[in-house]
């Protein structure tokens, strides 16, 4: 009787071992549960540089009212296909091409009379680049050197010198 009481009040070594085993099993179950839950959790959104770049081009196409086609520029400002061809070749107009290789000319580069925004042509002549989206990016992207403003904002504000100095400095390093 005394032995039975002792068994009930003080856990034997086998009980302790069993309790430890149960604890180990619970811990293993917790690990397994975490693994299963992590599999069923929604996957993290992975950044895709090309996809993100494509989305940026769409936003740039639509920025500031979008673009005019060559035909629209001819009817609106009398700019003939030959004039536009020459301006593109001489880096004197901002343009981009769609999937059908049709040229588009962003509206934001023109004044209401069809002239180019003051300073824009000088910047284009600094870069002398055919990299269409890179040129679009230069004018439409905010820059910390401009206190978060865009080159386009500065040109509109008449701060041509500031944009030209920036363009020249970065053109020298090819980091514009």
């Amino acid at each position, binding site marked *: 009787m005394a032995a039975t009481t002792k068994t009930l009040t003080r856990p034997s070594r086998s009980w302790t071992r069993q309790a430890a085993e149960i604890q180990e099993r619970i811990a293993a179950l917790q690990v397994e549960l975490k693994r299963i839950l992590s599999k069923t959790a929604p996957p993290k959104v*992975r*950044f*895709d*540089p*090309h996809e*993100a*770049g*494509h*989305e*940026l*081009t769409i*936003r*740039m196409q639509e920025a500031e009212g979008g673009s005019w086609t060559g035909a629209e520029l001819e009817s609106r400002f009398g700019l003939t296909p030959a004039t536009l061809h020459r301006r593109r070749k001489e880096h004197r107009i901002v343009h981009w091409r769609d999937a059908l290789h049709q040229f588009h000319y962003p509206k934001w580069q023109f004044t209401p009379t069809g002239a180019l925004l003051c300073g824009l042509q000088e910047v284009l002549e600094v870069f002398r680049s055919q*990299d269409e*989206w*890179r040129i*679009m*990016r230069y004018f*439409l*992207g*905010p*820059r*910390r*050197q401009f206190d*978060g403003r865009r080159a386009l904002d500065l040109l509109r504000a008449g701060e041509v010198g500031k944009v030209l100095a920036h363009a020249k400095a*970065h053109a020298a*390093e*090819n*980091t*514009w």
Partner: protein
Amino acid sequence: MQRKTPGNPNQPVSQAEFDKLDLKRFCVPVRGIFYRVHGLNPSTGKPFEPLHFSRRKASRFDPAGGPGTLHLGKSLTVALMEVFDDSWGPIGSSSRSLSATQLYEWWVTLVWVPQVMLFDARGQNPSKIGTDQQLVTGRHSTSRRWALRLVRHPSGIDGILYPSRHSSVDWNVALFRKANFLPERFDASLDYPVPALAAGATTDKLAYGSALQLARHPQLRDALVELEVSILP
């Protein structure tokens, strides 16, 4: 009372005064493989030489009066940030991008740096030599004056290990042109996947691998994903 001037590191003391510092206490031995991002020479259509010890006053630690300084990044990610981050905007903006054409205009070369002794510009060390973290974040012209003090110090250190201004977890090295690890040589083992050590790791000379266009670099995608930089078509 002189006010603090954030954004502009303080001027160094005279060379004679600076030379009294036990500079070696703040130096660390460094060796390993580093990344050099270099551009295209428009006049030749070929990449610029990967190992260029600059005295052009064009970057943080390349004073005109120095022996020439080679800047290297510890990873492709930080090397890209050193070149492009000043023109990148916040995530989601069109300026946080590289165009597909740009990826063909920039090149990456792996560089083996044998064991060199560098002033470690991390932690409290800038304070202990009399300046602060603006040495690595502030105006370049003043940092270049500090570089002159360091290169002319009698301890004969080989360069500076410095944290990137663009990331608190990445670091670069500015290596002064020193005869002890020159002439540099080509080492074909400096290729991808990046080896733990260059084949010539037993030598004490600077080595470089083949230049690889950024567009073809096996680590480019991971670096751009990490930095959340888009690729424009």
